[in-house]
């Protein structure tokens, strides 16, 4: 039984009711995040399902009234890193280099974004085009852009979800956006938009 609802101080019925009330409203957001992380519909489905079962199992450690979405996203992110990321591929060299720079705060090496990408060009782009550019980013940058711009978490919440200092959140987010704009500029040029 411990496997089903670990160290439970609440009855299974209450756990189920809590789950439905607190967590079900965030299913769309969880699926979105899982899909952007895995780049694969089947893996995203498995990741969401595993996250839900894990959340149910450890529901005793959730404090009702606290931010359920952040709690779920943290489980999902850990689940992805521990299980799914290993299955697909290890982080690329680029990923390591960028993340390392973000962590050490070595920002002088980063040039200011000077591309000729305009707001109007972005406004005209389709969701699929922007999604493809996001999904081409190294996973740590993809993750932070989704958490911030799609799910609108605060820097402090992102720091907790990703288990990194808030300063790293700021620098990683800035680098992620620079990379995204560069990717969109290259794409826009190839299509003759700019």
């Amino acid at each position, binding site marked *: 039984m411990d496997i089903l609802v670990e160290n439970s101080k609440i009855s299974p019925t209450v756990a189920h009711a809590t789950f439905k009330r607190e967590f079900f409203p965030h*299913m769309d957001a969880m699926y979105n995040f899982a899909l952007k992380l895995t780049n694969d519909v089947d893996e995203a489905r498995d990741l969401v399902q595993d996250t839900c079962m894990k959340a149910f199992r450890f529901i005793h450690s959730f404090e009702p009234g606290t931010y359920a979405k952040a709690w779920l996203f943290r489980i999902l992110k850990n689940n992805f890193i521990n299980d799914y990321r290993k299955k697909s591929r290890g982080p690329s060299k680029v990923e390591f280099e960028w993340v390392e720079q973000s962590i050490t705060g070595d920002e002088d090496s980063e040039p200011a974004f000077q591309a000729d990408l305009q707001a109007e060009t972005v406004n005209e782009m389709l969701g699929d085009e922007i999604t493809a550019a996001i999904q081409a980013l190294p996973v740590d940058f993809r993750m932070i852009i989704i958490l911030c711009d799609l799910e609108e978490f605060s820097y402090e919440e992102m720091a907790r979800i990703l288990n990194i200092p808030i300063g790293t959140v700021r620098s990683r987010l800035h680098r992620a956006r620079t990379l995204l704009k560069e990717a969109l500029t290259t794409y826009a040029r190839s299509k003759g938009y700019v």
Partner: protein
Amino acid sequence: MKTSCTHHKECLKVIQRILDKEATSAEEAQFLANKDQCLPCQEGYNLEQSLKNAIKTKCSVSCPSDLFTRIEAKLFLVLILISILIPLFC
């Protein structure tokens, strides 16, 4: 109006913090006071805002309804299992 900004890199960081609602009121006031006089900052602000809006409005998908149903069914099964197992261990 200025057509080049010598501290554009720093300005971009402030713009992003403003749009993320993470800037201090002093940072925001200072930027907004200077924005109208600086073309790169205006364009930077518009681009960052457009990109943020595009991600929010164009890049989300809904959870497939069958996945939702599958998770509910799995949770229900767990509840049934618990209700069967509890009497056996108590």
